[in-house]
Structure formats: C-alpha cells, structure tokens
C-alpha cells in the first residue's frame, strides 16, 4: 500500500494530518485562555482516520461530519484560515461566523457540515449517495460518526436504507472508546468489542482497522470507495482510535485511566507512526517532514492572528440567509 502512494501523496497526507494536529492543539490552547466562544470538540489523535479516508475523495464526493468535525473539514480541503475565523465567530469565517465550530461546512468542497446532533449525518449522506447513484457520476458519500452515534436509530436506519437501495456510501465509524464518558463496553452487547459486527448483520462488508495506522485506514477506505464507485454498494469501516482531549474542551476526563493519552501520544500517535513508516522505508526524508511541521505551525499561527484581527459579522447578518427567498 505504501508503494502505491507517490512521494507527493505521502507528503500531502502527512501535511493534512499535521495541519489537523496543530490546528486542534492550538485551538486547545486558545480555548483555555477563555477567548473562544461556544463549545469546542477536538480531533487530535484521530488524524489518520479523516486523512486516510479523504485522500481517496474529490470535491464531488460528499462527507458528513460530527460535532468533532475540524479534522474532517481539513482533510476534505476546507481552508484553515476560514475555519479558524469561524471558530472565533468572525465575519471572515467559512460560514460568516454564523455556524461556529459545530457547523463548519464547505459545500463546494463536498463537506456537508460538522453537526451538532449526534447521528444526524448518516441519513444526509444516504441522500448524497442516492444523488450520486441517480446522477451516475461515480461519486460517493462518506459519513463519519463515533461510537456514541453508532447507537442512534438514524445510523441503523441508514445502514438498512443504504443496503436496500445499494447506495455508494461508506460508513466510517471512529471508535475512540468514549461516547462522551461512556464506553461501548456498556452501551453495546453486540459490538462491544467490534461495532462493525453490527454492520455485517445488515448485509454489507464491514471491517475493523487500526485507526491510528494511516495505511490501514487508507487501504480499507480505498477498497470500500472503489467498490462503491463501481456500483458495489455500501461498506462499513470501523477505525479504532483515540482522542487526545476531552469530549469537549473543559472536560475533566475523570473517566479515563491516568496516562492513557500520554501513553498513546508517545507510542501510538498516528503522525509519529506515519513518519516512522515512511522514513524507515526510505520513501521520505525526515527533513522533509520537519519542513512540513514548521510550515504548518506558521500556517496555524497566521490563521489565529487573522482570526483575532477579523471583525465580527455585520449586524445585518442576523436576519440574512434564513431562506433563499421569503
């Protein structure tokens, strides 16, 4: 699989993962200062999932995301500056400051929105995939959702619906082990070990992969997306991963073992694993990755400064854009 990716692809994937990590780590820092409005849910630690999947997608392919949506946005090509400004509630934000962290969307990029409602995405992407199927343009729909959302009726309904209508849809479950603070060991009898076991019951291919291994995600997603593009119907991919921060910023995380995150950051970090894999295979030089790290840090710094300096939305925006026409 590594061999199938050109050096350019590898550097691009690494850059996307690094953008997500630095963006989220910086939002974490800024939020702690009390300067950011609203609720923020960070994606650090799960980068290999969003990027491993989205590297296969183009702008015609649609994704739906979750409350933890920044990573999916970046992986799908949404601009960092607009995203940061949106999180700051500024006029220059991706949504003009009217959506915020939980509602960043960029429809031109096929990003149908982060979503404040757990489990809202699967039906929407079923519709996107239905549109793809009717248009016969080879595009696919990908829904990202968590282990918590896996218990929502919308998800079960959408799995059945996607199989019934044979839709080009990929269910990407990000199992980070905690639905807010609740473990799948509590909330599932079937699926407490592998939630993908449930999907198999609906009659679609389902796999569980190491979600911190970019190449494992990339390979599983590639197979699923290719099958969907060729009319082979939906696939379910469970990615076992870990979030490095709380459910939301401010979560004391008393439900987690001490040092769980510290250990993961040291030994199971998707970026470190990616870097080790590509440098040891001689595909990329360490210095090239370091150059990306530095460039991304600058990019995030620039985005923060621009967001801080940007104006809030004009008051006219309060009443604008409820309807196309009314």
């Amino acid at each position, binding site marked *: 699989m590594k061999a199938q990716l050109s050096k350019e692809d590898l550097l691009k994937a690494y850059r996307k993962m690094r953008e997500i990590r630095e963006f989220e780590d910086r939002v974490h820092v800024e939020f702690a200062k009390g300067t950011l409005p609203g609720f923020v849910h960070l994606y650090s630690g799960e980068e290999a999932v969003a990027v491993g999947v989205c590297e296969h997608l183009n702008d015609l392919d*649609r994704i*739906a995301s979750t409350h933890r949506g920044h990573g999916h946005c970046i992986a799908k090509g949404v601009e960092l500056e607009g995203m940061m400004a949106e999180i700051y509630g500024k006029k220059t*934000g*991706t*949504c*003009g*400051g*009217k*959506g915020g962290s939980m*509602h960043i*969307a*960029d*429809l*031109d990029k096929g990003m*149908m*929105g982060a*979503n*404040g*409602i757990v489990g*809202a995405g*699967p*039906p*929407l*992407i*079923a*519709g*996107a995939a*239905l*549109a*793809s199927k*009717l*248009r016969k343009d080879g595009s696919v*729909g990908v829904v990202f959702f968590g282990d918590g959302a896996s218990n929502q*009726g*919308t998800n079960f*309904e*959408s799995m*059945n*619906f996607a199989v*019934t*209508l044979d839709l080009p849809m990929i269910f990407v479950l990000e199992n980070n082990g905690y639905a807010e603070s609740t473990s799948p060991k509590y909330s599932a009898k079937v699926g407490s070990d592998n939630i993908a076991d449930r999907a198999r019951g609906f009659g679609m291919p389902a796999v569980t992969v190491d979600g911190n291994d970019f190449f494992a995600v990339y390979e599983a997603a590639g197979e699923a997306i290719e099958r969907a593009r060729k009319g082979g119907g939906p696939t379910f991919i469970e990615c076992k991963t870990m979030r490095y921060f709380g459910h939301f910023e401010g979560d004391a995380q008393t439900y987690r073992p001490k040092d769980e995150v510290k250990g993961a950051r040291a030994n199971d970090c998707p970026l470190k694993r990616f870097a080790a894999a590509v440098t040891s295979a001689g595909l990329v030089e360490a210095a090239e990755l370091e150059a990306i790290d530095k460039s991304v840090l600058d990019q995030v710094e620039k985005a923060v400064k621009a967001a801080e300096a940007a104006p809030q939305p004009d008051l006219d925006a309060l009443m*604008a*854009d*409820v*309807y*196309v*026409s*009314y």
Partner: protein
Amino acid sequence: MARKIMFKDAINEAMRLEMERDEKVILLGLDVAGAAGTDQPRDAWGGVLGVSKGLYPLFPDRVIDTPISESAYIGAAVGASACGMRAIGELMFSDFMGVCFDQLYNQAAKFRYMFGGKAVTPVTIRTMIGAGFSAAAQHSQSPYSMFAHVPGMKCIIPSNPYDAKGLLAASIEDDDPCVFFEHKALYTMKGEVPEEHYTIPLGKANIVQEGKDVTIVALARMVQFAEKAAKKLAKDGIECTIIDPRTISPMDWNAIYSSVEKTGRLVVVDESYDLCGVASDVCGHVAQNVFGALKAAPQMVTAPFVPTPFASNLEAAYLPDANKIEAAVRKTME
C-alpha cells in the same frame, strides 16, 4: 372552463409535471409505488391513498419505495436535495414527524443560515393532516404550527384542488425546504384545475370572498366550513371576508391586516389547537399591529386542547364546523 379533477389528482399532476420538467425531481417514501420486492406488479398502491399512483411507470428510477424508516428516507431526501437534487419526501401522516423531525428542523431548516448562506436545500416534504375519519389521536393531527415555528422551513396548506396543484409545483420549484400539508378529507374534493403547468406564489393569501363586516381567516378544510357559515350569516345581513392564507410560513400578514382594517372584526378558524397555534398567532399579530381597527375581541375557533378522539360523536364535537364559526362571528357582532 377547465376540467374538474380531485384534489389528490391535482397533487399527482403537479408531481408528474415537475418530474417531466426537471429530472432532478425524485419522490421518496413508503409505498409511493408499492409492491417493492414482491412478485406482483409495482405501483400497487401509488401512495397509501393512491396520490402518487401512475408515477412509477413513468419514472421508475425516480419514484423510490423506501423501508419504513422515516429518519433515513426523510433525511435522505434532505441530503439528496443539498446535493443538487430536488427531492419530494412523502411523510405519510404528519403525525409521524416525531420519528424524523431532527432531519427537518435541525438539518434542512438550518443549513442555509448555519452555513453562512451557501447551502440550498430544495426539498419538499408532502404529508397528510386532518381529522374526520375516526383515525384517532396518532393519525388525525394538524401539527403544522410545530413546523412553522422553525425558521428556515416553508409551510404550505392548500384548501382546494387548484391551489394544491399550483402550490405544490411552487414548493417543488422553490429553493428552500417546504413542507406541504394535505388534508386527507380534501383528497376527493373536486375543482377546476388547468391541465398545464402553473405555480401559485408561496406567501400570498387567497381572498376567497369579500364582505364588509367580519374577517374570517381559515385554513385547509376549514375554508369550506367558513364559506358555509358565511352563506348563512349573509342571510342575516352579516357580510364576511374569508382569507385563506394558503401558507403559514411565510404568512401574508398584509392581506390579513388590511382586511381587518376594513372590517374591524376577526375570527380565526383552525383545525389545530389554540395554544401556540396559527389561530393564537394571527390574533396576536393583529392585536399588536392593527389594534386600533378592532371593534370587538378577536375570536378563535379551534379544536379543544385534547388529543383527537376516536368515537365519531366525540370527533364531531372536537372538530370546528360551520355552526361554531357562525357563533364566533355573531359574537364579534354583539
């Protein structure tokens, strides 16, 4: 004179014409064709009351039977519409809103605003309302005010075949999410309907008749009851204006205000409830905006604040009718 067809056939014709005009128009719902997965011919039902009968043979790829899975298929109608389609999702009974409402009020209705004006979600949800068939508490409601309460969704409530066809065509062609409420007691109502395509603008009330004494605002099936009451009142020299708003979001406030300014009296008739409903809302807006014109307290004729009962005598007592409207009008004349 145009031919006369039934309300449900007018709806069918609007869908057919829109599907002919635009291949992006699709219809999703439970048994909208019927007999899916059986050995028998498709289009067995054409919708539970036959409203979409005959569309499947014309558009087999675009008339899509779904599992009984409202969250999935109403959500899919929304998602497909956000991706360039113009989906019609049939939510069989509006009473079933509870099993899919998130996809409408948190998703479809809010995309445009939340996403900074960049989203267009031209989905139309067709759904039945109305009591009168002993269908009891879970198949008889008219919960449109719950939809109208959410900014971002348009709510359309036709009262006759002509309006049904033109308003449905307008809803499907509209770029905002529209919820189209079909009173099941009107399905067999006959009226003049042109064969060709036409639309009626959303947000423009129909002045059913004009009279100098009282303004009656009535929706859906209540319009014909208001007409009956007005006919009787006319014999006593009481002349009524009847306004059918046709859409409650947008609401044609100007039509109501300018009529009340002429008559000074208001009766609002709604098959739904008074509390937090269309009737109380119209009275409130009129009181706030044209209070000076009022010669009497506005009256509401609505269902009592109870679930729809099953027994036919209780249901008859529950429903507004011409007598109750007549009494309310007379009260404004005291």
